[in-house]
């Protein structure tokens, strides 16, 4: 594969409700932020990919409303197109546009204002209207069914799930962009109200407003820039069945497949030994453990023990979500792009909670109900 670099990144502070800015204002903030970070002008950008969702924006073809703010107004000579899925998938599309040979670089910008819609109704609309929607299910109940099966299958303790929230909120407290910046004790998490057993309120992602942008570039373009970039060593994506009843919820075959594809491209054989930091999309605490298993960081069913070993703490051998992850901030679709940004900052040595000299970092995004699809990025310092 021709080498592709990440040459600029930016994210907003995440919060809700962010009433002073429209979503286009947020897009402009991170677009100009990523350009400044890369030392580029908008005139240097060939191609733009926006990431948004009509349901979240409450607008048909919502991407049309952010072209100006993303620097793609007509007459500026840009190609612009859109992805309506997680930011990691938008970035993958941007990467393939560069590999096509048509563009030297691509700006990928994602936005969402979760506070403007009703998450329960929007995620209820994930479900099939003929057979499922009338039941009133949503993203939380779907994840709770997954958590319950996973817990039951491997005999995980409630402390294992709560421990993920404690770890990630501790990291989020140091992240200036995080939505939640207050540390939590294990008992605070365990005693928070039930959302849908076994998921407690403090084990669920916040619903944040915010935006994020990255600039991807070809090797030739990246080498002309002053700042040392992060390099894309491998990417993989995969999707599994739509209906929850057709899936084996205690594992994630699609994540395993996405990871194996990314590892194969990057030449990673033993992920837990070769990767020094991972930023993964855990919308709910149990998912960090489940995803860790399917990323090959530990054996199936060992996610709880991996957490207990302390290896995934910011100071451990394989820090997971030193930024605080999605439990620290989670704007829908933006969340995956933030994982790529945080992994890039780690490789540059500029993260708020910096891991010691990582050479290889992993970023992960998920899409759909209880992680129906996944996208895994391996980034390298060299």
């Amino acid at each position, binding site marked *: 594969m021709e080498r592709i670099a990440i040459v600029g990144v930016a994210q907003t502070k995440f919060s809700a*409700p962010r*009433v*002073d800015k429209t979503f286009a204002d947020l897009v402009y903030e991170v677009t100009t932020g990523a350009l400044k970070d890369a030392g580029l002008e908008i005139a240097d950008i060939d191609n733009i990919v926006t990431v948004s969702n009509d349901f979240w924006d*409450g607008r048909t073809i919502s991407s049309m409303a952010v072209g100006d703010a993303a620097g793609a107004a007509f007459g500026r000579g840009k190609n612009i197109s859109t992805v309506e899925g997680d930011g990691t998938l938008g970035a993958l599309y941007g990467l393939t546009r560069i590999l096509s040979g048509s563009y030297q670089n691509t700006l990928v910008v994602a936005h969402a204002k979760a506070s403007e819609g*009703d998450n*329960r*109704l929007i995620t*209820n609309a994930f479900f*099939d*209207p*003929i*057979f*499922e*929607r*009338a*039941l*009133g*299910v*949503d993203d*939380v*109940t779907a994840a*709770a*069914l*997954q*958590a*319950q*099966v996973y817990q*039951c299958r491997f005999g995980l303790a409630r402390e294992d799930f709560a421990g993920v929230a404690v770890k990630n909120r501790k990291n989020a407290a140091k992240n200036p962009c995080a939505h939640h910046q207050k540390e939590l004790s294990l008992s605070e998490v365990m005693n928070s*109200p*039930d*959302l*849908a*057993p*076994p*998921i407690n*309120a403090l084990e669920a992602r916040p619903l944040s407003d915010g935006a994020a942008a990255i600039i991807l570039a070809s090797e030739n373009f990246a080498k002309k820039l002053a700042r040392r970039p992060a390099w894309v060593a491998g990417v993989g994506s995969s999707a599994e*069945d739509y*209906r*929850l*009843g*057709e899936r084996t*919820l205690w594992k994630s075959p699609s994540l395993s497949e996405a990871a194996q594809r990314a590892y194969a491209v990057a030449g990673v054989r033993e992920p837990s030994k070769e990767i020094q930091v991972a930023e993964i999309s855990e919308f709910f605490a149990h998912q960090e453990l489940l995803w860790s298993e399917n990323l090959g960081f530990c054996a199936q069913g060992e996610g709880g023990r991996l957490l207990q070993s302390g290896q995934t703490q910011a100071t451990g051998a394989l820090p997971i979500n030193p930024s605080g992850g999605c439990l620290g901030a989670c704007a829908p679709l933006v969340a995956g792009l933030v994982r790529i940004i945080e992994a890039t900052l780690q490789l540059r040595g500029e993260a708020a909670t910096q891991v010691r000299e990582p050479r290889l970092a992993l970023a992960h995004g998920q899409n759909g109900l209880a992680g129906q699809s996944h996208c895994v990025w391996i980034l390298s310092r060299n």
Partner: protein
Amino acid sequence: MKTSDTVNEIKPQILESRIKVPYSWSAGEVGSHFLIQLRDHKKILGLRCPECNKVYVPPKKTCGACFVRCQEWVEVGPEGTLVAFTQARAPSPVHPVEQPIYGLILLSGAGTALLHLIGGSPLGNLKTGMKLTPVFREERKGSILDIEYFRPAP
């Protein structure tokens, strides 16, 4: 006049709005047959894949794994096994009952689990692997809610 001069005087406003666009979704041949059998005969049907023999409930016209048409209808259940469950404790405007309990139920003879409501038992008495049986509504309309809920089998 500059925004920067007056920015502190501007109170950001919110437009309270809504989107109300009515949809009418075709249940299709397969979905319609399933719902009509449920409505008229209280029967739960699945479709069997001719290659892998998996019985899809709710039915699907195509087996994704084999990428072939499923055409053989099979009656399944009515009893099933509880695969997963939870309860939505936080309210939602679309809940059909207060604090609904949800389950994934593998009906006897089915190869996939059906997502539905569970009733007649508190959450604490539920266990994965337990047997459940459907409770049908008296007045059935050709909807998935023609099954009111599944309850623990006697």
